[in-house]
């Protein structure tokens, strides 16, 4: 039996992303959303999954899925691979620049 990871790009709709096993703990993948937006999907060491917008607001590049996952004070974050700003994976808030936030998408395993 395989588990599939799904995310919700808009209220009440779920999109199947990939098998959970495709996700390397501590890394991300990008998913293409039906309206052309992109999501960055992550799994951490303890198996929790997260999805935020893939677009790095500081450079405009669709790259957050390729950043490194870490934790600070117990909260998971991803550091942008371009200029290294960190984003909280649960809230989308930028930890290095108040006032910058990226969208967060609900995720579930099926």
């Amino acid at each position, binding site marked *: 039996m395989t588990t599939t990871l799904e995310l919700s790009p808009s209220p009440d709709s779920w999109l199947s992303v990939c098998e959970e096993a495709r996700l390397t703990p501590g890394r991300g*993948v990008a998913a293409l959303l039906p309206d052309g937006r992109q999501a960055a999907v992550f799994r951490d060491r303890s198996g929790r999954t997260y999805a935020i917008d893939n677009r790095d607001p*500081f450079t*405009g590049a669709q790259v957050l899925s390729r950043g*490194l996952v870490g*934790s600070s004070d117990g909260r998971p974050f991803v550091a942008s691979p371009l200029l290294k700003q960190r984003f909280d994976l649960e809230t989308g808030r930028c930890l290095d620049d108040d006032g910058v936030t990226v969208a967060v998408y609900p995720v579930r395993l099926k």
Partner: protein
Amino acid sequence: MTTPTIVLVGHGMVGQRFLEALADRGVTERARIVVLCEEPRPAYDRVQLTSYFSGKTPEDLSMVEAGFLEKHSIELYVGDPAESVDREARTVTARSGRVFAYDTLVLATGSYPFVPPVPGKDARGCFVYRTIEDLLAIEEYARTATTGAVVGGGLLGLEAAGALSGLGLDTHVVEFAPRLMPVQVDEGGGAALLRTIERMGLTVHTGTGTQEVVTTDGAVTGMKLSDGSELPTDMVVFSAGVRPRDQLARDCGLTVGERGGIAVDERCRTSDPAVFAIGECALASDGRVYGLVAPGYEMAQTAAATIADEEGGDGFTGADMSTKLKLLGVDVASFGDAHGAAEGCLDVVYADSRSGVYKKLVISGDGVLLGGVLVGDAEQYGLLRPLTGSVPPVSPEQLVLPAGAGAPVALGPSALPDDAVICSCHNVTKHAIGQCSSLPEVKKCTKAGTGCGSCVKTIEKLLPAAVDKGLCGCFSYTRSELYEIARTLRLTSFAALLDSHGREEARGGEGCEVCKPTVGSILASLAPVLGIDGYILDGEQAALQDTNDHFLANMQRNGSYSVVPRIPGGEITPEKLIVIGEVARDFGLYTKITGGQRIDLFGARVDQLPSIWTRLVDAGFESGHAYGKALRTIKSCVGQTWCRYGVQDSVRMAIQLELRYRGLRAPHKLKSAVSGCARECAEAQSKDFGIIATANGWNLYVGGNGGATPRHADLLAQDLSDAELVRLIDRFLMFYIRTADRLERTSTWLERLEGGLDHLKDVVVGDSLGLCDELEALMAAHVAGYQDEWARTLDDPERLRRFVSFVNAPGAPDPSVRFVPERDQIKPDLTILTLGRTNSTLEGATSR
């Protein structure tokens, strides 16, 4: 009222200190100050004299702050010694013929080195060790010498021996006493010192006197020793003690001691109240001549205070002879009653002849610490010296046992009383240090730590909590400490390291963007010895790598990647050039020659990387590691094969080295170059390791850097054969990888390395730490285990699965990666990137 004149004879360490003390007291404003200085330069730090051989310039050693003399209107006559004093007329006559009338005369003429009256002592090749001029002469003569002998195994003799050995001479020390440093250390300490010094390759002859210097045509060729043997040597340095320079005082009828020294009272006045004597030339009121700088400084203060009419203070009644030195890299300290002269005193001794550590404390019957000797490990000196004269708060054995043995010593400088003198050079108490908040501030406000420097460690411990040197929020260890932990405990995963050695609050967590790649790199460097696969993208390793390593390519500003195949030495066949051109054309990539003699192909989407590399690998290319903290390129010049000036085949060597070190993961990137002659067309001296051909082989330079803070590389070794060169680079690189911090290029690492280039030479050339075999073995394992990362990636469909733009649409290209034309090639379409940009500016973003 006329302005009084103060004449100072001798501008040495104590003389300068005296001038500063006068200035502090405002005396310079109301008196004319004349200084007669015999040496060709103003006062310099004689204590640090030997550091001239480790690269300090005479200017670095100067003790006179810029503008000091002008500010206080001090007249300094350099190179013009005093020749006579007329005490009746109160005048001093200098060699130049100048005559100065004085109201107060201060003699600070120091000492001269004692040269035993043996035949041949004045031959060419005989030297003393006291002034910068002496060192310049020694350095010059040593160029043509291969063997050197030092007469005298005391403090200065060993320092001179270290210098000769550092100049590459086969060095002998001849000491009359039965042990080294007889004045400072006891028999056990001397034995520990002897073993360590012999291990460094010096030959020591104790219990032997010098009878004659053997000469041929007026130049030294050897020495006859009192045991009848003859020691062949090209030069001799006499360091058999010093004698006070009291001739001037004798000639004008001042009282001098029976065994020399200008007799002074507690206020440093000589037998003539208008004349003072301070420093090494003075015979203090306790009947001793002090050959150390700290007591001299105290005399300078006392004399200045007296002249300023401050009768307060205790005057100078004597000082303790405590010393801490680093002799040839060995810590040696003695303090208080080191020889246990007091009646009924007891010893507590710890000795470990394997490590050359010897520690002795002298304790009185009622438990008062009287003094001690520390050899090999003098860490505790800063603590013990101020405790002298009191009953230590913990038992004496706890004070001498090494950390880790027995009960831990809970005693730190915090246990010291407020009036404990922490810096004996400048007589600064713990209380005074407590008024400052940083080391620079302490040095500026109290001068503590600016003399011999032995108190600096203790001062640091007294200051508010030192800055956290930990790697990041997850680890309190530095990179090099983590390297050692992983190596010795054989920890093979990031999770194991974080959960066992992370900060409490970070254990079980994810780590962060700083420690993950750092540990990833450490594990990659150690892979062959830990028995793990060095391929960096499998298993947990995959999650540690920076984005660039993760895709084995460099991410560009629009999320596309650049591709840099390795072109060893910059040499490439036309066929391969054509392949690169074809690949670039077929995938529509922007092409540029890099600053590293290779070719960069820009604008590849992540899903194109495997097909691009399939073409390149098929044509014989390998990863160029432009993405990794690893060996980048080894540039070459065309060299002897074609160039009319070349003396070696620089291209062959560059290729050989690049193939050897390719794939080597390091704390930061590594760059190198090989030039075929001294014209240096490959710019080797700006590289982490650079090689320049000579008629006899290769010169190896290390620690060079271009970039933001350029640094010229330092010469590590000369005229090496091919094999010697490779072996030395192996050692150098592995030592760097082992000890450098995260993102520390070899240049900054070398600047930070304690002992600098000399220490590096000791370790990698002289094998002073006995590490070289291990370093070479590590490199051999790396070379044997190297495999091309791109070839291995292409071989494995599982590994290739990551190279997609979208996990849920594997075939789809990323629509946000688009290009527009420029100068017949492409460039990123920046309008896509700026679309919907938040108001936060890019400039605010820092890369970490």
